[in-house]
């Protein structure tokens, strides 16, 4: 049986005015065990003019009125999973490309995408400066997208793998892999992280005629949440798939990488 607590005792318990710790613990246990007593306590708690609650609400009101940082609204706007564009799909639509086994299904691939101007779409995802709206390569390939960022081009021209590079307004870049593709062109997979540790994008570019770098694929990483981990390391799945598709032989490392860069 619960001891019969008085309304005054219950009210004091609710308001934090009960000095007797043992009594407070007994009331807590009794309320947890007895739904009728819980009801009685809740009824008593109703309509109390609570100065403390008002003071706390006032104190935290500025947080409610503060502008919400864009990264929070963006967390809601972004589709689940990585956004990926694979330009090879677009250039070679007649060839059925195998879907990567670990495709999240939410990547953007060219068949769904063909109606959009590629430079616009890429600009939205990775930032205008990277591509600068230059669509159509010097080699006359209508699907080619050439890098328009001097900083990124300079990184791809000369930086060894595994060294972070300052890309000015674009943030930080790093080449993660260098290899020759099946056509013999030099290709480099790289990452760009927006200033201030923002979103990370992955991309693959291969050397084109005239010394330009042609973007083959890129994707923005899915934000890591909880235990979810994307296969193929952390890189955007579409970019990993494009590398798998194009790589011929082993990646180039060390002095070999630097030598190959010189004769790009």
């Amino acid at each position, binding site marked *: 049986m619960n001891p019969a607590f008085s309304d005054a005792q219950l009210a004091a*318990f*609710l*308001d*934090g*005015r*009960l000095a007797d710790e043992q009594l*407070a*613990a007994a*009331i*807590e*246990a*009794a*309320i*947890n*065990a007895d739904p009728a007593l*819980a009801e009685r*306590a*809740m009824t008593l*708690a109703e309509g109390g003019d*609570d*100065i*403390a*609650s008002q*003071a*706390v*609400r*006032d*104190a*935290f*009101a*500025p*947080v*409610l*009125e*503060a502008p*919400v*940082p864009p*990264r*929070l*609204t963006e*967390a*809601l*706007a*972004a*589709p*689940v999973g990585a956004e990926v564009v694979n330009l090879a799909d677009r250039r070679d639509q007649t060839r059925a490309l195998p879907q990567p086994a670990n495709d999240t299904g939410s990547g953007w691939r060219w068949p769904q995408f063909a109606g959009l101007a590629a430079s616009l779409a890429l600009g939205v995802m990775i930032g205008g400066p990277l591509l600068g709206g230059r669509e159509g390569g010097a080699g006359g390939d209508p699907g080619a997208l050439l890098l328009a960022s001097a900083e990124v081009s300079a990184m791809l021209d000369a930086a060894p793998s595994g060294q972070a590079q300052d890309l000015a307004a674009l943030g930080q870049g790093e080449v993660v892999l260098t290899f020759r593709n099946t056509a013999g062109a030099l290709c480099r997979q790289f990452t760009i992280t927006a200033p201030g540790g923002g979103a990370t994008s992955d991309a693959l570019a291969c050397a084109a005629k005239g010394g330009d770098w042609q973007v083959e694929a890129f994707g923005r990483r899915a*934000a890591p*949440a*909880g235990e*979810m981990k994307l296969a193929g390391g952390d890189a955007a799945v579409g970019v990993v798939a494009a590398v798998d598709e194009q790589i011929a032989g082993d990646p180039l490392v060390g002095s070999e990488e630097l030598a190959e860069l010189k004769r790009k």
Partner: protein
Amino acid sequence: MNADEPTRQALVALLPRLRRFARVLTGNLADADDVVQTSLEKAMLNWDQWQPGTRLDSWMFRIARNTWIDDRRRAHNRAGHDDISAMIDLAGDDGVALVEADDAARKVRAAVDRLPPEQRDVVALVMLEEFSYRDAAEALDLPIGTVMSRLSRAKAALAKVLAMPEGMVQ
């Protein structure tokens, strides 16, 4: 399945309250925004777990509170026990001077920030969000008497601060 557009709008509208909730839990706005961002990402990934017709705010507060508990667990592993509350106190008003300039309000916030973690989530839901004891108990997975008891202790601690004349705190 993704959240539909009206629900997305409801989540956007909920953001200020979610930030306030997380601010009370974490003790500073920067950590609060990290908790909110992770919570939103979790919510979008686990969208099919939300039952339409139930309270969206409750569901989000619950996710945010679990995220915060996870974070604290990790921070605890990293930094050793007693540093955490000290870190939270010190970080109390960082980087948001404009938002938290008002002196009296700052004292109340500081008092809330000094409450033990298990009282802060109850304070955030019942005092700020004006959840009923029953709804708070459900959102926090606690028995009602325990919610009442924790809030009661928090009120007792806050009363000491609120009763002090201006300028007398500490």
